[in-house]
């Protein structure tokens, strides 16, 4: 690790003032589960580390009639264990509980989960988010791309091929979550669905934050009555890995028919990937093996597999189908209420 200064502010405003106007100069430290590894491997080499630990306003979950406010410093375990999250935002609780190992869930925070850096091995080995060789050619299409994107990448051209690592983002987006961020100029609110971005140039990040902005909270509208939700992840093993493909679904129902559906895939593109075609297909339908399978089919239409990750297309297709069937099963059990 390089030499750097450590700052321990007690308010968000103070913290924002300690951040730099350029990426890379300063880094935010939340739980540290990602930042410590990034710094140890010299992927992050900040001159200043700004800890959010001492900022009380970033902690806690508040539940009210208008919905839920989740502080950025809430741990994944707290999120998973919270009663309102468990009862009304089932797919989110499930996603938080599936981040492997109590150790990571006890340290990792919600803000950190959304802002964690990609696990792409080219990025982690110093080739940058766009992973180009010295001639500017992309390394991923011709390299070992078994865990890389099947959507949202530029084929054989330079561009982003990593997958966004957050397990919480897909579920949060299906609930229409908003992110509150604070910077030197004050606060702003962004729909989580437009929070993530694909960098065009090396040096840009994978979200729309300015280098001196901090995620302060996640805002969820009140859960609507009778909404059925599920998250289905496909993992290589149960312990210590990110999913290979994730599908989060949220269904507004009218009787046993779908009024409207939100379906978001995770770990298949540089951003959480909405499956709009599948959403449209389900409107007015009941969820059956057949309609769920067709939605899975629609969700992967347009996927562009790389040389080593064709299997991920099948995983994504099946994840959508199983998430839908699971959500429908919750409805039958009457497990969920709104």
């Amino acid at each position: 690790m390089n030499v750097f200064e450590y700052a321990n502010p007690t308010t968000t405003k103070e913290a924002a003032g300690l951040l730099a106007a350029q990426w890379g100069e300063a880094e935010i430290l939340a739980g540290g589960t990602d930042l410590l590894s990034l710094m140890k491997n010299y992927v992050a080499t900040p001159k200043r580390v700004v800890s959010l630990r001492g900022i009380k306003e970033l902690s806690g979950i508040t539940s009210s009639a208008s919905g839920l406010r989740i502080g950025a410093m809430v741990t994944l375990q707290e999120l998973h264990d919270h009663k309102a999250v468990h009862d009304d935002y089932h797919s989110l609780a499930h996603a938080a509980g599936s981040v492997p190992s109590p150790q990571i869930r006890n340290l990792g925070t919600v803000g950190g989960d959304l802002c964690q850096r990609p696990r792409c091995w080219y990025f982690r080995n110093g080739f940058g988010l766009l992973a180009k060789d010295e001639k500017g050619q992309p390394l991923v299409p011709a390299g070992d791309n078994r865990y890389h994107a099947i959507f949202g990448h530029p084929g054989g051209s330079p561009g982003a091929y990593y997958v966004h690592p957050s397990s919480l983002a897909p579920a949060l987006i299906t609930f229409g979550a908003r992110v509150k961020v604070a910077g030197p100029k004050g606060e702003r609110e962004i729909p989580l669905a437009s929070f993530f971005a694909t960098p065009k140039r090396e040096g840009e990040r994978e979200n729309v934050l300015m280098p001196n902005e901090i995620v302060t909270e996640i805002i969820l509208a009140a859960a609507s009555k009778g909404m059925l939700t599920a998250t289905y992840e496909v993992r290589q093993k149960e312990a210590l890995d990110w999913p290979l493909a994730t599908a989060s679904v949220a269904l507004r129902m009218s009787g046993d028919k779908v009024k409207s559906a939100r379906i978001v895939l995770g770990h298949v593109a540089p951003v959480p990937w909405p499956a709009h075609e599948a959403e449209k297909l389900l409107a007015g339908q009941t969820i059956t093996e057949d309609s769920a399978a067709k939605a899975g089919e629609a969700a992967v239409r347009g996927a562009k597999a790389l040389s080593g990750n064709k299997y991920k297309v099948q995983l994504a297709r099946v994840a959508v189908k199983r998430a839908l069937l699971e959500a429908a099963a919750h409805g039958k059990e009457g497990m969920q209420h709104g």
Partner: protein
Amino acid sequence: MPDAAKVRIAFRVNGSEHIVHAWPMARLLDVLREELRLTGTKEGCGEGECGACAVLLDGALVNSCLVPALHADGASIITIEGVAQGEQLHAVQQAFLEHGGAQCGICTPGMVLAAVNLLEKCPNPTEADIRNGLAGNLCRCTGYMKIFESVVAACKQQR
């Protein structure tokens, strides 16, 4: 780099108060091993993937390789050295001994702490609870069944 940049960290480790001076982002793992000479806590991967470095931080199981030492300021920490009461082994330790829960022993401190923490929070775990509770701990000797049986035996013992 001048020592002045080091920070003072006061914490409780296994019941006794300690004050150390460390780099702010020094890993809790290194402070425990090098400053306090508590070498029961092991380093495996150094990236949060194996649990060999697990300790209890204010009652929560964490990987000490991912905890900046400064985050332990004011905290109470239990390492493997603090699990037994004098000569009296914890039920989990006794069970690991009797059921072959340790082979080379590198993963054992973390496994034992994960199991101790699990039984504190959930005295009657199901098989799935045990598997989940130990999901962050890797055993390279792959003695997983023996480890699992040791934890089951420790539960019975405690009842």
